[in-house]
């Protein structure tokens, strides 16, 4: 989906209008090995050309609008954003590694990204693991499901950001607090996908396993329930990879350092071109991580219909 157009657009900005080049490029790299394995290979040369044209038109309209407005802080042009991006990417600074305390050289953009990752990754990992675990447990055990469903139903609709109050009073707003918020977001997404995945395992497969000698719960979970629920669990993880970036930005509005904080900070200085550059950073990081996850997923779950 968005991944394709996303990977096509940087190329088009570099060689505006030379759609012919882009098309031949796609012929050799993307379309050739297509064996019907996934959405990426569905891309044909024509589709890619359309994507390039769409991106070019979008950039042109944006540039024209920015020139018409004439004030960077109201609407920075793509060129200004690209310039800001390069400046942030190259401006030297240092990044202090937490716990270790050592300072390592970095650039502003990289340092801010690392700051965000310091709460994004722990929140995502811990929240996902807890959510998947509880989802599996409740999906498997009817009793536990009955006992906890009222609680989960009640807590689920609360937006992760609402917990900021407790993040602040319990942990303080920093990496810990932001990770806590991110973790809550990851928890619910993964909880529901794991739960649905386990609930959806056909009784037929469980019966087959029992006729083949599986006679205890742990073996059943390990050899039947988990593999059968893996596609659903993977969907949860992939969804949370994206959703948690939104939460990161929101959490950083309250002062945790990172990319989201830079978006606000720059805007307060009326440097909206820098804000948009950092917005682009989030998009790029998402595209890269989502693309990587899809790739792993496709390979690991090659057995799916």
């Amino acid at each position, binding site marked *: 989906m968005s991944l394709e157009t996303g990977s096509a657009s940087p190329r088009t900005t570099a060689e505006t209008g030379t759609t012919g080049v882009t098309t031949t490029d796609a012929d050799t790299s993307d379309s050739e090995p297509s064996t019907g394995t996934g959405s990426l290979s569905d891309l044909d040369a024509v589709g890619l050309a359309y994507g390039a044209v769409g991106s070019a038109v979008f950039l042109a309209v944006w540039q024209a609008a920015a020139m018409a407005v004439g004030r960077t802080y109201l609407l920075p042009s793509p060129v200004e954003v690209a310039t800001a991006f390069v400046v942030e990417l190259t401006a030297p600074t240092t990044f202090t590694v937490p716990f270790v305390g050592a300072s390592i050289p970095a650039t502003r953009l990289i340092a801010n990204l690392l700051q965000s990752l310091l709460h994004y990754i722990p929140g995502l990992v811990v929240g996902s693991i807890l959510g998947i675990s509880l989802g599996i447990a409740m999906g498997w055990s009817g009793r536990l499901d009955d006992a906890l469903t009222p609680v989960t139903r009640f807590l689920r609709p609360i937006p992760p950001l609402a917990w900021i109050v407790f993040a602040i009073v319990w942990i303080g707003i920093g990496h810990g607090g932001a990770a806590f918020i991110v973790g809550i977001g990851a928890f619910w997404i993964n909880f529901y996908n794991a739960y649905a995945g386990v609930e959806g395992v056909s009784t037929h497969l469980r019966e087959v*396993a*029992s006729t*083949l*000698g599986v006679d205890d719960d742990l073996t059943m979970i390990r050899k039947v329930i988990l593999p059968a629920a*893996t596609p659903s669990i993977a969907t949860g993880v992939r969804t949370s990879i994206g959703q948690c970036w939104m939460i990161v930005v929101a959490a950083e509005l309250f002062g945790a350092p990172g990319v989201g904080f830079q978006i606000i900070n720059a805007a307060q200085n009326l440097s909206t071109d820098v804000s948009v550059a950092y917005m682009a950073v989030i998009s790029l990081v998402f595209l890269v991580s989502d693309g990587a996850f899809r790739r792993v997923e496709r390979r690991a779950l090659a*057995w*799916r219909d």
Partner: protein
Amino acid sequence: MAGLSDVQGTATDSPTTTPKVVVDGVDKVYESERQRVEALSDVNFSVSEGEFVCLVGPSGCGKTTLFRTIAGLEAPTGGEIRLDGEAVTGPGTDRGMVFQEYGLFPWRTVRDNVAFGLEEQGVEEPDRTRRVDEMLDLVGLGGFADAYPKELSGGMKQRVGIARALAVDPEILLADEPFGSVDAQTRDMLHEELLRIWAETGKTVLFVTHDVEEAVKLSDRVVVMAADPGRVREVVDVDIERPRERTDPAFGEYVGRIRELIGE
């Protein structure tokens, strides 16, 4: 339905040797607040060692319920099933099961599907691989060991199902309309294969079907069931030399007779 009420086929009328499977006075009643369904009522018959027996009957005659009860997936409300003299209390590897919907584990390759029961039995390598290869050769799927179920046709899937059921060396093979989802041509081929496998392994086979011709084609005896409540109407010995041809007049006679019993 014909007015016949003579219920034959008790545990004692098995012609030869000791019975492998005894279905002894099995009742199965499903009760809910609003209704009471008698799925099986005093079902009696037995299957001898090495015998091929088909269960046929109209829909609703409880043949699948009976299959599930023999499998140990459901408990009878009355009577009992005995395998080699021991009452069945739950599912187990002494009964190899083949299901209409195959029941293959989609995340496992053909090889790993066949190996599933062996893993549970604690069969170690290299014995496991050897046994799996042997089974795949038996069903003619040696070249598909590393394929996933989604890459197989219905007929091939069911051959994996049979290989997997036989891999653990069960006492009997239980099949519930195993060829109900494959086309007629494939079904004929699978019949030949199943009879060959039966001859090669000497397994006792209990085969549920609604297809009378299939029953006559395959079995030594046909247990004809009737519905409301599910019960045994008659047990028919099929006395035709194998291989059997549908064009054989004797074949047609058996089919006609069983159809009449069913009330088709």
